[in-house]
């Protein structure tokens, strides 16, 4: 299972990529492979403020709807509209075109709470 070393992770299977004052967020390769066949993505509203671990998006596969959490406190500054037309991007490119939203960080120190690739790999066994 692909777990890139340059990303951060949550226990709830989101990946986080630091981009200056922002973080880009998606779900991991492991998560997409467990879900399979993503058929619908409910994106967060632009400018929404979210606390860490607050559910702000929904990814639906054929069988299940799953909440996606804000990994840290922040404000939604970008959402991946491409997922509305092609939700399968999450399956095909979970770390690339399948990203879900970008948060403007409230406090960059919050990132210290997240897992590194090593810790996430250990979690998913």
């Amino acid at each position, binding site marked *: 299972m692909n777990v890139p070393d340059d990303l951060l992770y949550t226990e*709830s299977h*989101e990946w986080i990529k630091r981009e200056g004052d922002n973080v880009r967020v998606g779900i991991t390769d492991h998560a997409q492979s*467990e879900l399979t*066949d993503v058929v619908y993505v*409910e994106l967060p509203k632009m400018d929404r403020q979210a606390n860490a671990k607050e559910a702000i998006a*929904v990814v639906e596969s054929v*069988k299940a*709807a*799953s909440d996606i959490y804000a990994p840290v406190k922040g404000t939604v500054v970008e959402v991946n509209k491409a997922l509305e037309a092609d939700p399968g991007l999450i399956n095909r490119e979970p770390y690339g075109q399948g990203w879900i939203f970008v948060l403007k960080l409230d406090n960059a120190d919050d990132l210290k709470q997240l897992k590194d690739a090593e810790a996430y790999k250990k979690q998913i066994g």
Partner: protein
Amino acid sequence: MKVRSRGRVDALAIALGESRLSLMTQGEQKKTALCDEHVRLGARMVPFAGWLMPVQYTSIVEEHQAVRNNVGIFDISHMGQLIVEGAGAREWLNTMLTNNVGKLDVGTGQYTFLLNEGGGIIDDLIVYQVGEEKFLTVVNAARAEDDFAWLQSHLPAAEADVSAARAVHLINRSANFGGVAIQGPRIAELFHALFGPAADLPSRNSIADLPFNGTTVSVARTGYTGEDGIEVFFRSEAAVKFWNAVLEKGKPFGMKPCGLGARDTLRLEMCYPLNGSDLSPERNPIEAGLAFFVDLTKSNFIGRDVLIETKEKGPHEKLVPFRMKEKGPPPRPHYAVFENGERIGEVTSGTLSPSLNWGVGMAYVSATHAKIGAQIEIEIRGQKFPATIEKKPLYKKS
């Protein structure tokens, strides 16, 4: 990421927290004789009705399409197999089941219901007449124990002395027998590849014993997918050999092993009910729109009085298929249904139909609103999405 709603209760736990849970509870689940084969094929195994079952091997959508376009095989060994035999078997079964067992001949089967005294559905099942005085019923895994206990408590022997002419024996053979469903338009080719060019494919709803590799298997032309297909029942010892033979002989026909996920999307496109979701002891076959499988001309069967009353007065609620009008989130069980702002019912089954690439489902709605073509709304996470009540089935082969 955390699962917030699922397609069916305690069943298709394919997302993360739940697959972890299923690992913890795997030890408590019963395993079919084919369990090791599923694991070898890389299936995602989940607890279902007390059994550890494959929910999918590669992808629900791919497996679904294999059945619609070619052929697929499902392990249905978790389903219960009850034998009813004896000189009084037919007459007694006819008092227990809604359809008319008297219309069966040796080698034929019918879909039917087992009801409680209130007309509520204990189980939906297929009863096959497999001998002059012998019947095989194939029942839902989750209900098998309850069905057996219910039937046993109603055996004539429980009432009084039974004359030989009325003798009925009930046997639960589930632990020693398994089965597979092989479904899809290429079934006839595959059947002859398996059983030889001279073997006769049973006709629709019929069942026949056929020799296979030194053993005998029962082949029924029945299924739960809407495609042509067969269900094959065998002793558990023969399961692995038969399964692998089907996979091997099926290769030229695009055969795929298929899990419970595809089984659910296939049946829902056809509006075949799922017990526990669309059917329950609180619902009767008339509300479920399945009166065709109830013979009210029979003088006596458990639940008959209530069904006659329901038929005369009309049911309060009816099970209706619906289709979403826009691309959007797929409907799921327990979502509320509205018409003109008024709440009229609740979704019992819903998914994104892989054949139609569109959200579809079934819901119980108040009978006054249960009209084909009616414009309704499904409430999904606080937002209402438009849908239309449709005719059965939701998917028709073009």
